[in-house]
């Protein structure tokens, strides 16, 4: 009786702390920030190898792990310059709003059947697209607010880019939902416990992979911020920590789409129970799949030049769109044929 009371207390505290843990640790703030920091560091190290360099070297031992923290501090201490003709409110607020949108979308991703921050049930997949659909609006506003020729061209490009990518992505995701028989991300993951959807939906898998790179605005599709043409596209006028936020937003959005990609096609949190507690091993498998996916996306940046806007539109509307519809029909055929 005496021994039970503290453990009960502990249990109730833990139970009540669960949402707090989710917000603070995983998939919340710490996870997102650590992901951004580690991936940027890893990207700089890996691409430096491709360029016959060593990359970050001095900050935090010879590996330069603390370089990103130093960079962040530097950006934080820098002066924020607001152009004279800019719309001040939008100019300052857009970069701050920007990383929160993909961060909101991450809350829908199940790390375990029980470990979901935002339980949207059967609405979780449409909700993801609804939330993520806001993200192209912000660069458009930001580019307009800065009132600069480069930023305006960059923000127009953003709009084109997202429209040509998002429709094939939605069609592919709905094919997955048809196969799983539910829009609930948790149930989509559970229905992949025998076979990952990457195998029966190979076309959708490839399209979603390309779409993930487009949505995260990474090379070869980083057209809105093409440095050699548009200085930094819609980011040109941002300085100091505002620029830091826009850079962070890129990686948070990359994380959100990578997590969705893993959830839809790579079996989500499914995997052998190797850490004893199912919850821990589920989180482990999620992170492991992320750690395999991220270097592949990063290496693409070192290998391919950037596409042109018209070439990307052609890719999106002539190839990705018809192929995703084909994929939808194949899924329907498989479903009606009773194979899945």
């Amino acid at each position, binding site marked *: 009786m005496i021994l039970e009371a503290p453990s009960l207390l502990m249990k109730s505290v833990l139970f009540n702390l669960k949402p707090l843990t989710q917000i603070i640790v995983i998939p919340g703030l710490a996870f997102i920030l650590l992901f951004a920091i580690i991936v940027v560091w890893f990207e700089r190290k890996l691409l430096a190898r491709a*360029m016959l360099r060593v990359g970050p070297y001095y900050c935090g031992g010879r590996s330069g792990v603390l370089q990103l923290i130093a960079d962040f501090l530097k950006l934080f201490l820098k002066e924020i310059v607001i152009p004279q003709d800019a719309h001040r409110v939008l100019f300052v607020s857009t970069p701050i709003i920007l990383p929160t949108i993909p961060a909101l979308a991450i809350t829908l991703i199940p790390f375990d059947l029980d470990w979901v921050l935002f339980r949207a049930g059967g609405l979780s997949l449409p909700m993801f697209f609804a939330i993520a659909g806001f993200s192209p609006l912000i660069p458009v506003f930001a580019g307009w607010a800065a009132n600069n020729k480069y930023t305006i061209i960059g923000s127009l490009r953003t709009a084109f880019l997202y429209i040509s990518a998002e429709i094939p992505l939605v069609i592919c995701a709905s094919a997955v939902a048809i196969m799983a028989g539910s829009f609930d991300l948790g149930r989509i993951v559970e229905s992949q416990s025998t076979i990952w959807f990457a195998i029966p939906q190979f076309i959708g898998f490839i399209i979603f992979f390309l779409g993930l790179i487009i949505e995260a605005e990474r090379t070869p599709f980083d057209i809105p911020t093409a440095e050699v043409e548009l200085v930094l596209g819609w980011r040109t006028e941002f300085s100091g920590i505002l620029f830091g936020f826009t850079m962070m937003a890129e990686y948070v959005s990359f994380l959100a789409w990578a997590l969705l990609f893993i959830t839809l096609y790579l079996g989500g949190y499914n995997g052998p129970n190797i850490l004893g507690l199912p919850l821990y091993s589920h989180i482990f498998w999620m992170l492991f799949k992320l750690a395999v996916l991220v270097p592949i996306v990063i290496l693409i940046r070192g290998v391919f030049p950037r596409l042109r806007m018209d070439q990307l539109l052609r890719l999106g509307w002539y190839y990705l769109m018809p192929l995703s519809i084909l994929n939808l029909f194949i899924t329907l055929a498989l479903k009606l044929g009773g194979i899945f």
Partner: protein
Amino acid sequence: MSEPQIEPEIIRISWGPQHPMSGQTRILIDVDGEVVHRLIADLGFTHRGIEKILENRTLLQGLIPIERMAMVDTANIGLGYVLAVEEALGIEPPERANWIRSMICEICRINSHLYAFGLQVESTGYFPAVFLWTTVDREVLLDLLERLTGARWSYNFIIPGGVMNDLPEGFQDKVREAVNYLRGRFRQYWEAMVENAVFEMRCVGVAVLRKEDAIRLGATGPVLRGSGVDMDVRKDEPYAAYGDLDFKVITQPDGDAMARLKVRFHEIEQSLNIIEQVANEIPGGPVRVKIPLFPRPKPGEFLSRVETARGELGIHMFTDGGMNPYRVKINSPSLRNMYVFERLAELNRILVADIPVVINSIDPWYLDCDR
């Protein structure tokens, strides 16, 4: 420069001189959405008055400022000036000096072409991997030049009457080593650039310059040869040792950005062959003839043409019997190609994203344009 008027609905972007990719110039781009209507090159940011400086120097002192025209390609430009000076002084360099001159010029040409296509690859948005590879590989050649001349840049090694010094001991072996190393590397470049699908999409069919347009607009160098015109001063009017050397003039029929890149690529192969030939077959003898310290040229008009990495350089020198030239007119290849660049938007449909690719496929050296 007074800016020409623009029509409504068209945005004029000032591309440079403060821009990540522009270099020391400004290009005004009139765009309607993504389509470029007009290109205006606003040159002159790096004008140093080299032609005027040369009037206030003796013929030998003039070597120093003229090599500053294009640092990456100093030997070719220096040779152009030296040929004009030799004509004015009426001296003939010894045979061995001519061979050494050819070798240095070809090393410079490789240097310059490596830089050019490194930049072109970077301008397609390639994360600068290939650009840094070319930078690293240039070191091999710069080491050779350092061993030969004592400096990595701007060495003033080619002087009226020959070259400064003979080849150092064991230099030929070093040359062969470097040539073999570079041949191995170029296979990798070919795979990373020409055979890269996305790079091909960005360069093939971009900014096509047809043969008759290239001739009409006065293009020169790799731009002209990329349009299928077989013209190279080294073959047409051999100077230095090019008459005795065995090499081909590279042409490509397509006239697009990729053709110009391929011309540079194959020219590097030819240059490597030339360097190897010089290392193997160089004749013996002295490397310079004595000339007076303050030579007095005969009055008259002297013209020299050389093929630099960017095209034909003409030096037109007038002398009036004094120690200094009366006037030196430099016809620089980069400036000629910039005229072609301005017309490209009228001949083709060019998008904003193509601008860096196009300008770097033309490969102007702005210091050379402005002089």
